[in-house]
Structures are given as structure tokens and as C-alpha cells.
């Protein structure tokens, strides 16, 4: 079965093309481009990706409007059925606003927009999205965000840590995130949200290819199931 993915485009998304190209190149499969106003998603998806950008101009709160757009009901429904869902940057914000991931992403502690390569630690190398990495591996992935300051109450943070749901952690101060959390998984492990952009680090011309393994993990996971 060829790999089939959907990349959602909201008004104001700007990493949707990069995301689609990354998935296409790494999987050799098909990527459906889905508009936020569509009420349905194709069947048989192996991955749904919510890209970065500034959906709805970040009005109200980053990701707040997009999380209530028609297509998100279908995303929530498919996530509930176990379809892998990846949210990057604004996509992560949308996933928290939609209630698919705990916590919230607030204005960076330093107020400024942060746009640079950051070092991350792979905290959980056994998840659907990270199994191709080594446990504790240090990887370099770029960030570009204004609202990436991850917040959740202490009880939630303890639970995330205890359940191995912190996928990635910043190895350097980045945005003031609680416990330097850069990416979190949902309880079932089929939804990942992360502020860094793996789709911007998939070939040497990007300055590195540490992002490839995230997509390869999803591919391998599906091959292992097949």
C-alpha cells in the first residue's frame, strides 16, 4: 500500500508546501492537500499533518480559530481512531487549542520572535514519530515562532514526563517553555505536536537532515504494522 498523507491548509498557513514536499520525498507516497473548510478527509490516511504558519492571522490566540474550522472535526475524529497526526509550530498550537494535546503555547518568555536552529534531545525514541532516532540523541532542527512557550500545570507536566509523552526537549533556552518541552505526545501516542520544524531539515542543502527520521519513523511504524 502506498503511503497516503493529508496536509491541511488554513488561511495563513505558510509551511504547508514544505510539509507536503517533505512527506512526498521521504515516503514516495501521495499527499492530499486539504483546505480548512473541507468537512471531510480522505479515507485510509497514514498521516495527517498540520503545518506551520499564522492561521487566521493568529487572531484571538495562535491556533484558536483554526482549531474550530470545519476540517478539524474530521481531524479529531481520525485522531480518535488512531490515525497519526503531526502538528508543527502553528499546527502544534492548533492541536492544543483543539484539545488533542494538553497545555497551551504562550508568547515567548523573551517576547521576541525566535528564528534559528536549536538543539533538541530526543526524550522518547520509541514513539510512532521518533523510533528512528536513538534514545537521548541530540538533533538540530530550526524553530521560527512567537508563541512557543509551552505551558501546562505542574500535575499535567508530571504526568507527561511520567508517561514518556515528552518527545523532544530543548537543550538550550529557547522560548521559556515549562521544563524546556519542545514536543509532546497524546495519551495514545498517535498525536505529536512540536514547535521545531522537522520538514525544514530533510536534506543537506537545508543545513542538515535531522528532521528526516521523524517522517521515517512514521513510515517504519506503518511498515512494521503491515
Amino acid at each position, binding site marked *: 500500500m502506498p503511503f497516503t498523507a493529508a496536509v491541511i491548509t488554513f488561511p495563513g498557513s505558510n509551511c504547508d508546501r514544505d510539509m507536503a514536499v517533505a512527506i512526498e520525498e521521504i515516503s514516495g507516497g501521495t499527499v492530499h492537500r486539504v483546505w480548512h473548510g473541507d468537512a471531510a478527509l480522505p479515507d485510509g490516511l497514514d498521516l495527517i499533518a498540520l503545518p506551520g504558519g499564522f492561521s487566521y492571522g493568529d487572531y484571538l490566540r495562535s491556533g484558536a480559530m483554526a482549531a*474550530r474550522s470545519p476540517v478539524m472535526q474530521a481531524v479529531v475524529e481520525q485522531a480518535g481512531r488512531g490515525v497519526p497526526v503531526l502538528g508543527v509550530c502553528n499546527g502544534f498550537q492548533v492541536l*492544543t487549542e483543539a484539545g488533542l494535546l494538553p*497545555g497551551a503555547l504562550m508568547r*515567548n518568555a523573551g517576547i521576541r520572535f525566535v528564528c534559528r536552529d536549536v538543539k533538541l534531545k530526543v526524550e522518547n525514541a520509541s514513539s510512532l514519530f521518533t523510533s528512528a532516532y536513538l534514545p537521548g540523541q541530540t538533533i538540530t532542527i530550526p524553530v521560527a515562532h512567537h508563541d512557543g*512557550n509551552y505551558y501546562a500545570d505542574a500535575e499535567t507536566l508530571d504526568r507527561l514526563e511520567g508517561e514518556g509523552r515528552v518527545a523532544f526537549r530543548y537543550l538550550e533556552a529557547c522560548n*521559556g517553555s515549562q521544563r524546556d518541552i519542545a514536543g509532546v505526545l497524546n495519551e495514545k501516542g498517535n498525536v505529536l505536536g512540536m514547535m521545531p520544524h522537522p520538514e525544514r531539515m530533510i536534506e543537506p542543502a537545508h543545513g542538515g537532515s535531522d528532521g528526516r527520521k521523524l517522517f521515517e519513523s512514521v513510515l517504519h511504524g506503518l511498515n512494521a504494522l503491515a
Partner: protein
Amino acid sequence: MKVRVHVSLKNGVLDPQGRAIHHALEGLGFDGVNDVRAGRLIELDVADTIADEALDEMCRKLLANMVIENYRIEKVAA
């Protein structure tokens, strides 16, 4: 009927914008400001018949993010 929804950050949630405003006020020479918290005011013009529960639901579903924010509904005489 005019309704004002005041959205504010919960206690204990760090407010980077409030802190920046605080620093700016100090930079302008204003002394005696202990703390600044930035929130959001949303004004709605709604039917007089609207139910309180509906207003509450609007806040919980969209206007406030209950993970980090509180809200207060204020009805203003039209």
C-alpha cells in the same frame, strides 16, 4: 444588549507581555507599579433574549482558553 467579556491569565501563569509592559512603564519613570497582567476585552452585541448559559459556552469554547485563562462576563446596559 452589550456584553463585555474580560479574559485574563490565570494566577500563576507567567505573562511575558505583562512583564514587558511593566518594564516599559518603569523605563518611562513610573514608580510604584508592583505588577502588570495583560488581558483581553471582547465586546459582544447580542440579542436581549440570549441565555446566560450560551454566553458561558461561548467563553469556554472559544473566547477564553481554559488551560491558561479565566473569563468574566459583564452585561452592560444598552
